[in-house]
């Protein structure tokens, strides 16, 4: 259960993030097991006593050396197998791709372009910018550029990025000026936005909700103030959203 000031993995919306979380937990399990053995052995080796003092007088023990060479090698092989599996599974593109979105990084905001194919096999779409909300007092009652009650400073935006739930899609990330990085930990996605290059990332969100993220590549003075908000909606809502704005 999350608490204020906690440092946990965020809630997972995709298989990429959930598998990364499971991988982390598996490795941490092995880590705790190894740490326990190491700390106990070191304590036995340093502190002498009636029962454990003999550990200080061992001069050679080839079997033990073989064990503490082979067991870490096996553990490392196991960890690497798990991480390779997660790595290659996360990079798979799930066919067919239902939607494409182009994300462009600027200093210091994001632009999202949506594209869909209609029944006539024509592309239709639109784009919008996404700015982080400011701390100033609102100038009017419907001022959408500043924080309203309950919003998070440096995390909420005026217009979030919308994607559908359960529909495989592809994100194409680019940049207009300097290198940025579009990163949403809850989706398990971190893609560098490099000027002059288009980076791809598959996405398949499994649950409805809102995910937060930040820019992860130093891009100037306001690098801290270009947040990302992803709204995962039902496919029906997504179609209404696309028809409304296109």
């Amino acid at each position, binding site marked *: *259960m*999350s*608490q204020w000031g906690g440092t946990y993995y*965020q*809630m997972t919306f995709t298989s990429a993030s959930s598998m990364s979380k499971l991988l982390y937990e598996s490795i941490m399990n092995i880590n705790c097991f190894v740490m326990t053995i190491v700390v106990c052995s070191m304590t036995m080796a340093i502190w*002498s006593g009636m029962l454990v003092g003999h550990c*200080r*007088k061992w001069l050679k023990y080839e079997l033990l050396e073989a064990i503490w060479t082979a067991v870490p090698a096996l553990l490392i092989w196991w960890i690497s197998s798990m991480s390779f599996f997660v790595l290659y599974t996360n990079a798979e593109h799930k066919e067919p791709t239902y939607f494409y979105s182009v994300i462009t990084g600027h200093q210091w905001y994001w632009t999202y372009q949506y594209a869909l194919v209609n029944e006539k096999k024509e592309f239709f779409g639109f784009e919008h910018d996404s700015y982080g909300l400011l*701390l*100033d007092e609102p100038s009017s009652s419907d001022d959408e550029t500043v*924080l309203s*009650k*309950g*919003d*998070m*400073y440096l995390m909420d935006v005026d217009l979030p990025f919308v994607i559908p739930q359960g529909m495989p899609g592809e994100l194409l990330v680019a940049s207009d000026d300097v290198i940025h990085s579009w990163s949403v930990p*809850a989706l398990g996605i971190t893609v560098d936005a490099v000027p002059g290059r288009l980076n791809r990332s598959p996405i398949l969100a499994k*649950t*409805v*909700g*809102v*995910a*937060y993220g930040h820019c992860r590549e130093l891009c100037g003075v306001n690098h801290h103030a270009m947040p990302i908000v992803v709204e995962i909606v039902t496919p029906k809502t997504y179609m209404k959203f696309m028809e409304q704005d296109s």
Partner: protein
Amino acid sequence: MASGLLRVPVILGRRTLVTSVPRLSGVTTTGDEVPVVGIQVPVTEEENSKWLLENNPPAPAKKGRNAHLREKLYTVIGNRDIVGPGVSGFAEYIEAEEFPFPAVRFMEPYPEIMPLLEKEKGDWKNLSIDEKKTLYRYSYRQTLKEEYTPEGLGKRLLIGTLFGLSCTMIYTQITIDYIFPWDPRAARTRQADWQGVHLGKLIAQNTSYTPGDPYWDYDKGEWRK
């Protein structure tokens, strides 16, 4: 045989080398021998070694146990007695709990201790406490208690850690107070009413595994009855 050769010792370090220096004084040669002027042909190694042994005899071995070892290890241990095999047979003084009896005594024999060493050969009940202590210190550097006393490394580590931590905390507070204070406009986001609305948003958005308030009905927007 060449006569008139003078062997002059040349000292290099701790060993002496001998070279041959020619000396010509009324040397007459027959038709077979060729008069040689200058450096003679050097002697063989065997002849040189033999001459060295005759003119540089080794020091006589001292009487007593391990006299041969003492002779060999003088540069390592000096005049200290060898009293055991020690650790792996090396003549060193090592203090360790695992190997309690070092190979050599700690001190070299000095004139004041000689009568005590003779007295030690008799009945130990005749030795006083101070004499026993002197004999102990002659053989060992530290008592067991002195050896096992901790050096206070843990205290030094704690001092260093706490010092670093306090320096960091002081630096952080100075930075916040005078150099780059937190934005005062963000204070309203930390109030209870703002946080309450924020928590409701998190729950409605399915953003996080939030505990929520067990007494607040988030669906109806009122306190549970």
